[in-house]
């Protein structure tokens, strides 16, 4: 979009790995689920299924894998291009998403809590997610894929600054 400029900082490059891992994990679940369905459907006594379906049922997990596989590659790269963040003028400005995008503006003075979280994959990769919460979901933001050190420092800065600016007019 031409109206808003890009936030200054990219997230950590390792976030690509994180998103790839997550996408692979999701893919494995999907394909596994499809395989289960296929196994169930190809079992005996599914007379209500048309013959051509039960004969070719094992194409289902394959089709799922083929359709999903490109996204496993595309989504992390696309996300890395989109996900950006910036803290300036006491406003957190962050962009996220891939197919659909989202820009969030959170003034530090309205921040209520700042959570620094690490999931299982994130801990492996030394990444962290920053959850910035205000009194409203629409004024809250979560920045994923930050380097753990960066996230910790940012969380501390934000909490400190938010305490100074605290303006709970809401």
């Amino acid at each position, binding site marked *: *979009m031409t*109206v808003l400029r890009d936030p200054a900082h990219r997230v950590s490059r390792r976030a690509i790995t994180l998103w790839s891992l997550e996408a692979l994990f999701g893919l494995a679940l999907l394909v596994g689920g499809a395989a289960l369905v296929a196994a169930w459907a190809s079992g005996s006594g599914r007379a209500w299924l048309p013959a051509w379906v039960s004969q070719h049922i094992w194409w289902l997990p394959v089709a799922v894998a083929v359709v999903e596989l490109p996204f496993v590659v595309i989504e992390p790269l696309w996300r890395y291009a989109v996900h950006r963040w910036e803290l300036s*003028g006491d406003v957190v400005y962050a962009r996220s998403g891939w197919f659909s995008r989202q820009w969030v503006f959170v003034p530090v*003075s309205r921040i209520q809590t700042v959570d620094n979280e690490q999931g299982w994959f994130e801990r492996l990769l030394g990444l962290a997610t920053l959850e910035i919460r205000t*009194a409203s979901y629409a004024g809250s933001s979560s920045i994923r894929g930050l380097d753990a050190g960066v996230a910790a420092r940012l969380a501390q800065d934000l909490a400190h600054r938010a305490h100074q600016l605290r303006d709970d007019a*809401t």
Partner: protein
Amino acid sequence: MSEPADPAGPAARPEGIGPSRLSPLVLLIDPVRMLPSLFLPLVGVLFVGGFSPSSFLWALLGVIGSVGYSALRWVTSTYQVTGYHLEITRSLIRRSSRAVPLDRIRGVDVTTPPLHRLFGLAVVRVDTGANAGDKQEGELDGVPLAEAEHLRELLLRRSRTVRRQTGHPTPAPAAPEALPPAEPEVPGTRVAPAVPEGLTPAGPATPGTRVAPAKPEGVAPVGTEAPGTWVVPAEPAAPGTPAEPGGLAAAGPAVPVAGVGPPAHEDLDVRVPARWLVYGPLSGAFLFAPFALLGGAIGLAFQWGGQFGLDESAAITLGEWLWHRPVLLVVAGVALLAAMPVAGVIMYAVFNWDFRLHRHGPSLVAERGLVTRRSVALEHGRIRGYEFAEGILERRVNVGRLWALVTGLGDSRTRGQLLPDTPRDFALRVAAQAIGPLDAALRPHPPAARRRRLFRAVAPAVAVAAAALLLGWAWIALLALVAAALGVPLGLDRYRSLGHTYDGARLSVRSGSLPRAQAVVERRAVVGWTVRQTWFQRRARVLTVIAGVGAGSGGYAAIDTGEEQGVCFAAEVTPEWITPFLHRENQPVAGAEDRLVAGREDRPAARREDLLVPEREDLPVPGQEGRPVPGGEDLSVPGQEGRPVPERKDRPAAGREDRPVPGQEECSG
């Protein structure tokens, strides 16, 4: 009401209420209320005992036991208001003492169910906004009515005082606004009467008045101000001429004379005349009452039938008997349908009887109900705006419903109700007077939004029709085509409903068709922005801007605005949060074309000074500004469009005094 809420020394005399009990009259109410639940067991005991003397004895013991239980509970429950808490102690079975911190109190409801009313009692419920599921929190069942009113005032007042004392983060202007005009009794001292929402005290600077430190938002004083900050020596300003109830036609807010007489202090006392109760069913409320009643009756018949020898086989026989007489069934169905509006009106009238909205001290109080009289006090300092909703039927006759958006009040749709179905002009005048007017017409969204609304209303039905045709289901295809045809006016109407605006103090967004809602939110209530753009929206060059608000539903969306229009809307409301991130913030003078020049990547954060370049009139998006939405009566108060906007001191502070009257789109650059 007698204690002066002296803002200068609130700690001096913390008022409170010593340990008190509920009225002993609850002893009369409790057993009666227990009757339904006692009835079956008692009857059962009598039946089982074959109505022998001993069975009567047991039944009597049961009654005595329950009365005794009530009495014990009454004796062992007390409540008191101490310095910082409302404490409710129950020590019957296990000692439980619940302390509700006064600064967490968001509202106090006083309800009088019929039995209570008979004895002059009331139920007081303290709303802390916290765990809504825990109904028991702060409920005092059976307080004498006068005491209940006193308690409500006391709690709300103490709550404010405590918040100010502790400097607890809470809504700021609660303090000034909240104090009722008649309250301060310190001679010659008056709490700045007229601080309209979020404005800096505009009165002559006086001792104790503090200019808020330059906060980035420019929102001035906050709750952490020391007590006394707001004291402005001045004779008590006569509150605006009291408007006669129901006749609010000329009730536009008076032009503020340096810090005196904002709309917030005009008297407000309106009643909804009984004849407007007929609008109720148009909102769909209680339309299904006949079915609910029938269901309840059937349930009861099953429950009680068992006691009197009727069982399921009888019910099945009855059902079969009915099934063979379809005429009866049809008649019953028609009767139920015909009863819908009638029952709807009756139920609606019972709940909304004699609806009264008035200002009482620091609160807006809404009272309603015929059998159970309910009174909800919404603290003024926590109200951040309002929402006006109108369904498709209601729009036919120009009526709608009004809610207040209150911080921390989760279910604003039930508790924040300001008006039931009333004519729209009336409702808007009341809103303008009770909370504040919206002084700008809604701006329409670009044509791409219309295409998207139409597509979304029509496409699903068309897809169904196509699929049905392929499968050869002609009837379904026909139905789907009819639905698709109906989608056209629906989509067009949904587009006409879209709109957003900002008048310098409040922003407003509207959307929806079958239910249409317009929210009007104060600028200071905005806590952030979310801009969303799906891939499809991106192709249509539109986006959705959501104002994060710590009240009401939490977020209010302007759907499918133009890319520039949407971002500039956010920038117009809170320039200091958005302009640093616009592409062209460093270009002092730029034409509309320059906006499209791509900015440099990774530019360092804009320096603050850059943001305050002199104002200039931006080129509006062609043919879009200032023009009201096509379909659109919006919420701007009738007859006020051209009125100069009163001074808005909450506009971004430094260097912005020369800002032109807001309302034109300005993506300040």
